[in-house]
């Protein structure tokens, strides 16, 4: 199952003679519109999940609003599918906006938010945004900060042995880089005896829950830590769609071809705070959608009214889905041991 999105990552997306140059954008207008569509969809989905929480129909929310300008271009360029010919994702819990352009069904996100038995990611067992999609090589998101940088190593090794174009992608936050696991990932990815085809990403929103990054980080950029291992590394403005798109494109081309690691630190916003535990209220940070929409409007790629209508449409769609999902059953208590092992329950047998 190869993704149509993957073909988007071809340089063809950049129209040198077509619409792009006229608009002042480097990406062509069709792609810009598609990115915008996904950003809005992803945002509205997160906002719906927050409503679900606030209406006491779910216990806990966290997610990725504010990271769309980086996450959507990432999702569009992932080589989606199952098995080692495709990219393998070891994600953390802010990856909704990556999965939306990959084809995530928003209803499924709501199912997990409402912990219904129909939740396809965890059957009502796990928190919101803890995605798991076997068909797309999205391994189960685990709450433990930074362990994904360790598990990703194994995918990287499998990819290194397998060859081809598939790469391993790992994401996480800025504060989490203080865990030794982040360093382990750099150590293993850069070993001369077997460099790993990994795109190592940190989304830097300047906070770990309530803890501001400034007083905690002795390094100028987190990217410097990758550079110490001679890993090509870039810090980018993750709130800028084009900067993100091209940085990811360049990184992926390098990793797919050279079969070596590449590091991106994307500076992003955290628009609803850390999670519902801190209220999930709107924060006074730069909104990448606002920025992007201003540019799109100014460049004449989209009209204000169309953008508003789009948001309206998604808002209604999400509300309808949310209502629909509300009817779905809770998991049965008798199932607590199901799938402890493949096809086996897990107590004493």
């Amino acid at each position, binding site marked *: 199952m190869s993704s149509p999105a993957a073909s988007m990552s071809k340089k063809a997306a950049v129209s040198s003679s077509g619409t792009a140059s006229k608009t002042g954008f480097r990406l062509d207008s069709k792609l810009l519109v598609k990115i915008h569509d996904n950003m809005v969809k992803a945002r509205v989905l997160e906002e719906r999940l927050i409503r679900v929480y606030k209406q006491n129909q779910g216990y806990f929310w966290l997610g990725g609003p504010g990271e769309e300008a980086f996450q959507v271009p990432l999702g569009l360029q992932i080589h989606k599918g199952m098995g080692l010919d495709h990219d393998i994702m070891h994600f953390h819990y802010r990856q909704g906006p990556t999965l939306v352009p990959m084809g995530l069904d928003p209803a499924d996100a709501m199912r997990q938010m409402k*912990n219904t038995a129909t939740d396809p990611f965890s059957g*009502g067992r796990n928190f919101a945004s803890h995605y798991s999609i076997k068909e797309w090589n999205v391994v189960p998101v685990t709450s433990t900060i930074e362990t994904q940088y360790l598990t990703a190593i194994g995918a990287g090794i499998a990819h290194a042995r397998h060859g081809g174009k598939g790469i391993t992608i790992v994401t996480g936050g800025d504060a989490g880089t*203080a*865990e030794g696991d982040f360093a382990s990932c750099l150590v293993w990815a850069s070993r001369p005896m077997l460099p790993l085809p990994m795109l190592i990403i940190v989304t830097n929103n300047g906070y770990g*829950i309530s803890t501001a990054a400034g007083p905690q980080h002795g390094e100028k950029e987190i990217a410097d830590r990758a550079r110490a291992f001679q890993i090509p590394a870039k810090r980018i403005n993750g709130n800028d769609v084009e900067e993100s798109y091209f940085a990811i494109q360049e990184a992926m081309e390098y990793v797919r071809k050279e079969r070596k690691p590449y590091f991106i630190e994307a500076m992003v916003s955290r628009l609803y705070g850390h999670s519902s535990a801190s209220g999930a209220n709107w924060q006074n940070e730069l909104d990448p959608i606002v920025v992007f929409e201003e540019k799109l409007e100014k460049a004449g790629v989209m009209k204000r009214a169309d953008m508003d209508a789009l948001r309206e449409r998604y808002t209604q769609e999400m509300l309808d889905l949310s209502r629909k999902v509300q009817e779905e059953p809770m998991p049965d208590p008798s199932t*607590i041991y199901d799938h402890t092992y493949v096809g086996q329950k897990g107590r004493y047998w």
Partner: protein
Amino acid sequence: MASIVQAIRMALHYGETHLDLKEVFGEDVGPPLGGAFTATQGVECAWNSPLDERGIMGAAIGMGLAGHRCVAEIQFSDYIYNTIDLMKVAGLQCWQSNGAWNLPMTIMTPTGSGIRGSIYHSHSFEATATHIPGWKIVYPSNSLDAYGLLLACMKEPNPTLYLKPKALMRARAEEQIPGEPPLTPEGQKLLSQMIDKPVQGDTSKWKPKWPKLTDYTVPIGEGKITRPGEHVTVVTYGRHVPIANQVADQLLQEGISTEVIDMRTLWPYDWNMISGSIRKTGRVIFLNEELEVTNFGEHLLRRTVDEMFYELEARPRLLAGEFVPGIGLADPLEMASVPQANHIEKAIREIVQERA
């Protein structure tokens, strides 16, 4: 009427002003948040550490060895499992150096289920903790004990683990912490005005007004009988104490008399109290919410068998959490994974009817 959270704050304040407490640290422990449960809010020496449990545990050990006393927090006991090697290292410093070194340090961490925490905010930690030699482990079930046990930890020359029941963090005590305002609604409001940081407005300059606190120490190693009884002993701790009390009260109306023991200290535990009670009732249920396989309650049960096998009047029981990989988020899953009041009631009814 202090909550456990408030009691911890007050104890830490007492520690930094009267005992030798120098540092309180951990993830989000300092301003602005003052801890995931606000248990370190207003504490002068509290600060935010890097997001690094291994660093936190290591730093605590290094401070302790330097004679620099700390209370360090692991944000949830769910996230302590990458530090087990370090906890073992902490536990053997004195022994390894044949007594030359000692290690005063306290790790505190919220533990257990009951807050709809799903897989990674519902973990219990007692089984793993009690298998590590060299620590003393306490687990308060109410505010007064929370205060008194934290003072005990801060006076202890050995590593101490202070487990906090997630489910009871906002539960109010029935007993007064020496120095806190009276146990009235007004007193509770006053305390809140004094030491709870306002949720609204600019709080960057907020400072607590501490009540005049005095020393109140619950000695490590002493349990407490929270309900005296004759027919059966329920040995528990933390979150399950109020639930066991409630079940005991209810069954008493039918004439079933349950003795409930709040262990308060898991290691070294109050065997005098526990074994005395079991000898009296001849029936015992060890109750906790940890995974039931290689469970600390199984140790207590084994010791009961070791010493009282021929005296028991019924098969001794363990009532513990199901051996599931996680506590599922959905309500029916959590209810089925962790002992609830109805499970306890059923177990008590069964054991009192059983005749050896």
